[in-house]
């Protein structure tokens, strides 16, 4: 294997893939990158056995071949070289070394054979579709904060992606709150597809996707999901489990509808949260005619009280919530006004954007204070 490349051309793909390479690796080969030089392109692959990123760069290859090289060291070398430096990278098969030459510098790195590298080639696609990047990014960003973190119910440590007729939904829940977001796309699977993307894959994916109209191809296999962008291919394993039926969690019988200015409401919540219990984050909400009174106190008996003017016609109601969950939901909504739907003191609160066209729902369970 041998090729020449400019520093900037290899630095960008390396930045993309090196995020996947973890420092502490159980398998030595995972701290390496798979570099493979095909006819007219150079592909670099990194994996941590959970997610895999492959980047492709179009360059002229003098000699095809593939080998794995230490990721961290290779990246650091490329970073440390001067701007616009030309790299000449060659693999010496008899010594199992990769030689990097640039100007007066020369580096020789150890390698491991490419066959040791567990890259995923064929994911046995069962369904695929195309979607504008920003739509996919949007539904992920609007829901991912509700994913559970290291819950024993491992299927909650991820994001449910549901593909139904002409719609894609993302749902995340940690058992205390739930986020739901739907977008319409031209898809028609023979039956509804439900997959759970693991937490790590979701976080990485939201970094990779851009706010652009360009299309991304999504391929779903039995055990994996793969996204193909222009120069990048992202593959993640799926969670092996059954996501709870979220429709039963979203309350439908709430009769107390409150309309509030989102920013105004959020700021008041944020202020009150300063004096709420640091561990439980409880806040008491009291619904009155055109008014919400919020009250928080901490173990030192310090107290915060806020009065928020809202649009509300209905009976009085008092209930407690984790203020962080409410703040998260308010932050994820981007309309100026929000609609809050309450039932009774023991039923969940539904927070919605005040716009029928945006299909986002946030459910927060009440807590006993």
């Amino acid at each position: 294997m041998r090729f020449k490349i400019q520093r900037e051309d290899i630095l960008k793909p390396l930045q993309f893939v090196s995020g996947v390479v973890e420092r502490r690796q159980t398998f030595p080969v995972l701290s390496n990158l798979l570099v493979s030089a095909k006819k007219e392109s150079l592909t670099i692959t990194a994996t941590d056995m959970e997610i895999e990123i492959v980047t492709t760069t179009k360059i002229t290859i003098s000699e095809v071949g593939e080998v794995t090289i230490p990721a961290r060291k290779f990246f650091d070398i490329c970073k440390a070289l001067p701007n616009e430096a030309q790299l000449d990278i060659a693999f010496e098969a008899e010594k199992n070394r990769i030689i990097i030459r640039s100007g007066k510098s020369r580096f020789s790195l150890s390698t491991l054979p490419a066959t040791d590298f567990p890259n995923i080639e064929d994911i046995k696609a069962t369904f695929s579709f195309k979607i504008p990047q920003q739509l996919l990014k949007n539904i992920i960003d609007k829901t991912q904060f509700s994913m559970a973190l290291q819950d024993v119910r491992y299927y909650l440590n991820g994001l449910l992606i549901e593909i139904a007729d002409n719609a894609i939904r993302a749902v995340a829940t940690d058992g205390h709150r739930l986020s739901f977001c739907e977008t319409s796309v031209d898809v028609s699977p023979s039956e509804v597809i439900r997959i759970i993307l693991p937490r790590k894959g979701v976080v990485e994916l939201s970094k990779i996707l851009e706010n652009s109209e360009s299309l991304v191809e999504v391929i779903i296999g039995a055990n994996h999901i793969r996204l193909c962008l222009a120069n990048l291919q992202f593959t993640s394993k799926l969670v092996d489990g059954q996501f709870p039926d979220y429709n039963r969690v979203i309350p439908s019988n709430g009769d107390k509808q409150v309309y509030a200015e989102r920013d105004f409401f959020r700021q008041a919540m944020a202020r009150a949260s300063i004096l709420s219990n640091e561990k439980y984050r409880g806040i008491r909400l009291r619904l009155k005619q055109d008014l919400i009174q919020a009250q928080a106190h901490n173990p030192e008996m310090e107290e915060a009280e806020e009065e928020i003017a809202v649009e509300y016609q209905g009976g009085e109601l008092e209930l407690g919530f984790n203020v962080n969950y409410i703040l998260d939901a308010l932050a994820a909504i981007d309309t100026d006004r929000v609609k809050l739907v309450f039932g009774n003191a023991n039923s969940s609160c539904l927070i919605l954007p005040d716009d029928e066209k945006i299909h986002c729902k946030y459910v927060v369970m009440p807590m006993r204070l």
Partner: protein
Amino acid sequence: MQYPWHVPIWQHLAQRYCSAQLSHALLLSGNPGLGKAILSEQFAQWILCEAATKRPQLPVPEKLLPCGKCNGCLLYSAASHPDLMRVSPESEGKAITVDAVRNIANFLALKSQFAEYQVVIVAPAEAMNKYAANSLLKTLEEPTPNTLLLLVSHNMGSLLPTIRSRCQVISCPVPDATQANDWLTQAMAQSALPTEDTKSLLMLAEGSPLLALEYAKAGTLSSYKQLLQSFEKLTKKQSNPVEEVGLWLSVGLAPSLKWMYLWVAELIRFKSGVMVVDNNTILSEPVLGKVAESVESMRLYTFLDKITDSIRTLPTQVNVQLTVEDLLISWSRLNR
């Protein structure tokens, strides 16, 4: 390579697999030195091998080995197969921690990468501490589909009963004497060792051929003979415990306790009259006779219990010298 005494176990497991009846958790149990860990590795590779796992038709062919050429086998050999996880103590004698076991749950929560199965090998299973073992229970009870947990244990009794009851126990019996002897002779000839002592080596290893081979390589037989001599001298009052302690310590606590157990057990058998003195007798006749004459059975049994207690304290931070001194002194007091 497949050990001849593994063949029936292989057949059994493969048959289960081929008829889609393989249990999700197998507990391989048996004496040390039977190659249980190797068996678990081989079986894991076979499950992950892309060629072999295309279900062979029943009845299962006699030779079942991974192909060694497919992607699965290559990744296995490179120790980077993404669908195989090994859980062992970080260093010999340490415990398997709860974090390691939690990683199993995280590993199994995701779907497999290449293979049909996700395989986890826990060896030795008794190295799991209390918390680790308890957190494995949920995984054992509600495994994700296509999961195979292989637990390897040579001390099944020290596993939590809740773990044992959740696994299918595959016991690896000691091979019969001829088979073990044949294999050991061949293996020793291959590593250019003299092959005349195979019978005694197998006796020392309680019939486990691999352990016997290890003993042969380490020259354990000669230290065994030294200890036996020292034990007989002590019994015949030709030496005193303090002089002999050095020798026992140089051999090490674990083997000396095990051998002493064998000898005392033989004395009990002789004393109760169920044993005939022949070629296979370990202790010499005068020693047997002397003990049989002067020591009551009851006290021999008490001493045997003492050895068992010491064996139990082996993994703890017990003072080795004190343990040996205590045992030898009580032995010489015993047969006044």
